[in-house]
């Protein structure tokens, strides 16, 4: 969420202007937002980074600007709820200025969205972004011509390096209503006039609404009914079907024909291309990562390198920190605290410092630092969406076509965010399956890192076993759900792949820093609290009782030691805290090869974390989310138990 500077806000309240940043997905909107406001939001080189709308203030020339960072979109015709969210915000928020982020690499696609936004008649400023990349490709864009043709200020920008920010601020002051418009031909213009006539006098963006109605936008119905009531809507709809029945063929095709004609003419006018072949390393890598023959080895290599880095480097850091930093301090501390109770409170097996602080800083932080560096490099490169090309057929087998691939792949980053992106899925069945699979056996980035760290201590084989089990579980769950929920709506898979680029070292480090900072800020208090909680539970004897009660389940069924009760309680609070304890058990030799595998598998699936559960409730409602969570928890126990028996069986063979 964006930083809302409440101190400066009231002072300038009477001189406030609302600015919406719009553009294609991945066109640098969030980057420009960060540059203008000075706040930091995670920027990834793939789509759907902006899920909920970020908002922040900045001041320029005595005017307070309220800046909205909107999710990316391709056109105003809503294909999904997410795109609808953007459109509704534009329509309802009455922005003073639209800041259109025009991706110079994708000029025609951007202009296609641009003309739709310009048709709204809201004052606009264009940030022509990523011009460094186009000039490297030998493409030169005539900014002055673009500006004079459209009648709005155009600012050249390289958002990644913060270039163009100051000019953008002063241009926003001078934003003008664009003068570009398209005449759609006598037939459609007459139809538009006819629909506009039906809309109430004070309705905003009548021409655009009329156009969307002609194009048969299915999301508009709800809004119009809300605005005018059932009766008037029925009247509008009746007239509308009268108007559309006069058309021969698809209005959409003619509208897009007109728009693309406009785009082609404009781009011919402003683009000069040099004649040379651009074959960069990045492009070659992108192609190799999507090809089956090279792509699968590349993927395996990435996993292996990540594993080796996490296990070796993180462990090394952790050991060094322990012996040179932690141990001397703790030894000193323990000699300073005379009381047995307080010593136990601080340094015991459930101590505030040993379990809470130590778990977070000594065990989890090194692994997350190393893992996030690797992960952020991949994210910054734009590698992740290219994976969908390789995995599409597999997804189709479990009933997921098209829209759900990206959310699930994103689930490896953060399950909560991925759950929100399922909004882009049109079919209810697919959305449900996707949310389930994301919440179930899919390990998110910190989980992958920590699992690597935990399993690395007992060997690479353990890592392979756990991740195979998780994969098989996901596939089985997907296939079963697909069979159970018959639904024949077919979704076309059509996915824009971002260009792979050489990762920016500064951006990666900055993003890693913010991710770690967020982890410490969010998780450290939970680590400390859960240590105190466990300590209390132990002192009042609850842990002992729980261990006796759960013994059949934990000892016999799962084959794990009694102490695992602590872990299961910690999972509820924060997965990372549980991981820290498991890692501690492995280090102390209290978990053997089998037990390490079972406990990691179990904790990866066990109960969705709070944030994820919150997202699930928001997307599919409380009842369904809780049913899902219950089912997931139960299955995780069953699967972990079965895994235990299988491993034991192989031990005996």
């Amino acid at each position: 969420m964006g930083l809302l500077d409440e101190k400066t806000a009231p002072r300038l309240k009477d001189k406030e202007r609302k600015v919406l940043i719009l553009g294609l997905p991945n066109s640098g909107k969030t980057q420009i937002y960060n540059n203008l406001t000075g706040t930091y939001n995670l920027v990834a080189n793939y789509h759907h980074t902006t899920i909920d709308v970020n908002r922040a203030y900045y001041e320029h020339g005595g005017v307070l600007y309220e800046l909205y960072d909107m999710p990316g979109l391709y056109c105003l015709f809503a294909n999904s709820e997410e795109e609808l969210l953007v459109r509704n915000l534009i329509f309802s928020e009455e922005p003073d200025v639209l800041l259109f982020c025009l991706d110079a690499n994708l000029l025609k696609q951007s202009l296609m969205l641009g003309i739709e936004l310009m048709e709204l008649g809201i004052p606009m400023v264009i940030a022509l972004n990523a011009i460094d990349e186009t000039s490297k490709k030998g493409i030169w864009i005539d900014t002055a011509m673009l500006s004079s043709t459209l009648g709005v200020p155009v600012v050249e920008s390289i958002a990644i390096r913060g270039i163009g920010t100051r000019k953008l601020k002063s241009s926003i002051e001078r934003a003008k209503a664009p003068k570009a418009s398209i005449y759609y031909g006598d037939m459609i213009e007459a139809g538009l006039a006819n629909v506009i006539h039906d809309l109430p006098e004070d309705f905003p963006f009548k021409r655009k609404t009329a156009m969307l109605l002609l194009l048969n936008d299915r999301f508009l119905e709800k809004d119009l009914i809300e605005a005018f009531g059932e009766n008037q809507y029925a009247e509008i709809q009746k007239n509308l079907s009268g108007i559309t029945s006069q058309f021969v063929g698809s209005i959409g095709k003619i509208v897009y024909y007109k728009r693309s004609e406009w785009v082609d003419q404009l781009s011919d006018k402003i683009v000069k291309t040099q004649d040379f072949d651009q074959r960069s390393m990045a492009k070659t890598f992108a192609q190799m990562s999507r090809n089956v023959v090279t792509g699968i080895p590349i993927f395996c290599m990435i996993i292996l390198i990540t594993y080796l880095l996490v296990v070796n480097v993180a462990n090394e850091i952790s050991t060094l920190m322990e012996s040179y930093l932690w141990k001397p301090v703790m030894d000193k501390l323990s000699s300073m605290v005379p009381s047995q109770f307080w010593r136990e409170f601080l340094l015991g097996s459930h101590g505030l410092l040993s379990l809470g602080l130590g778990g977070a800083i000594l065990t989890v932080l090194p692994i997350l630092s190393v893992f996030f560096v690797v992960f952020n490099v991949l994210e910054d490169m734009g590698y992740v969406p290219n994976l969908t090309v390789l995995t599409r057929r597999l997804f189709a087998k479990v009933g997921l076509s098209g829209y759900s691939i990206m959310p699930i792949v994103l689930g490896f980053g953060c399950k909560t965010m991925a759950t929100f992106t399922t909004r882009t899925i049109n079919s209810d069945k697919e959305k449900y399956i996707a949310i389930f699979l994301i919440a179930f056996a899919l390990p998110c980035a910190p989980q992958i890192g920590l699992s690597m760290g935990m399993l690395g201590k007992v060997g690479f084989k353990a890592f392979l076993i756990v991740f195979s089990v998780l994969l098989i579980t996901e596939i089985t769950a997907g296939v079963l759900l697909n069979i159970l929920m018959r639904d024949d709506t077919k979704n076309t898979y059509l996915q824009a792949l971002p260009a792979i680029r050489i990762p920016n070292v500064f951006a990666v480090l900055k993003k890693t820093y913010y991710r770690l900072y967020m982890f410490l800020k969010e998780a450290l208090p939970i680590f400390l609290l859960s240590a105190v909680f466990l300590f209390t539970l132990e002192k009042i004897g609850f842990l002992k009782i729980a261990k006796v009660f759960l013994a059949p389940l934990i000892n016999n069924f799962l084959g794990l030691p009694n102490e695992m009760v602590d872990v299961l309680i910690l999972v509820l609070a924060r997965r990372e805290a549980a991981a820290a304890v498991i890692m501690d058990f492995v280090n102390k030799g209290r978990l053997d090869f089998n037990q390490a595998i079972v406990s990691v598998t179990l904790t990866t699936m066990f109960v969705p974390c709070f944030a994820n559960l919150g997202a699930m409730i928001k997307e599919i409602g409380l009842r369904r989310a809780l049913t899902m969570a219950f089912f997931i928890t139960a299955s995780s126990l069953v699967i972990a138990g079965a895994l235990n028996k299988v491993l034991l069986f192989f031990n005996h063979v």
Partner: protein
Amino acid sequence: MNNNNCTEVDEYLESLWYINEKGQGAVSDICEHTVGGLSEDTHGGLSEEVIEKLVSDNLVEIDDSSKIIGLTPKGLERARHIVRAHRLAERLLYDVMGKNIEDGACEFEHIVTMELVDSICTLLGHPKECPHGLPIPSGKCCELSAKSVNSSVIHLDELDIGKYARIAYVNCPNDQLIHRLNGLSIRPGVTVKLHQSYPTFVIECEGMHIALDNELAENICVWRESEFAYDPKTPEIAVKRRFPFLRKRRK
């Protein structure tokens, strides 16, 4: 009968086809289908002379009590041919000659013979719909060879990997998809490069890499390479492939 009158008959049949297409009625029991508003919507008023001609040629039937006009099987067949010729002509004028989509193609349909229509259909790769998005009735050629060697237009999934091609038209399987395709600039006239076809099709289109499934790739129709003239806007075509030995051998 003179030629002018024959044209008029054709226009009536075409109008009746349009009206049937818009209504929900099944084409098979056409005689029971209500045909209303014929006089206002189409080519002038109903001329008694033409109606009589239509009836006497057994092309339409009129229900005496309710005054409903319907196509007979024979009339249906004739109308089908006219509409097919009209819509294929639109495709030809729009895709090949770059004519404005609003200009009519009505003069065309009365000139061309059945054989000529089939060869235009083959040339264009048996398109499924006209530029307006209306279905083109299929002909014999379409059933005989869905993917003929004689086509100048081929489906994207038949293109060789690494080759460029210009999009001729897209058979849009559903209405919602038009908006997404246009947002990504996948539209007639645009040059695309096919990067790979397995496990997923990846094309490059106006500087953007796009992954799509087989079904969609089949619905994107492109001009065959020989038909594709050098376009200065896409300089990469002129550049030789760096690894000629990797080139897929063409039959």
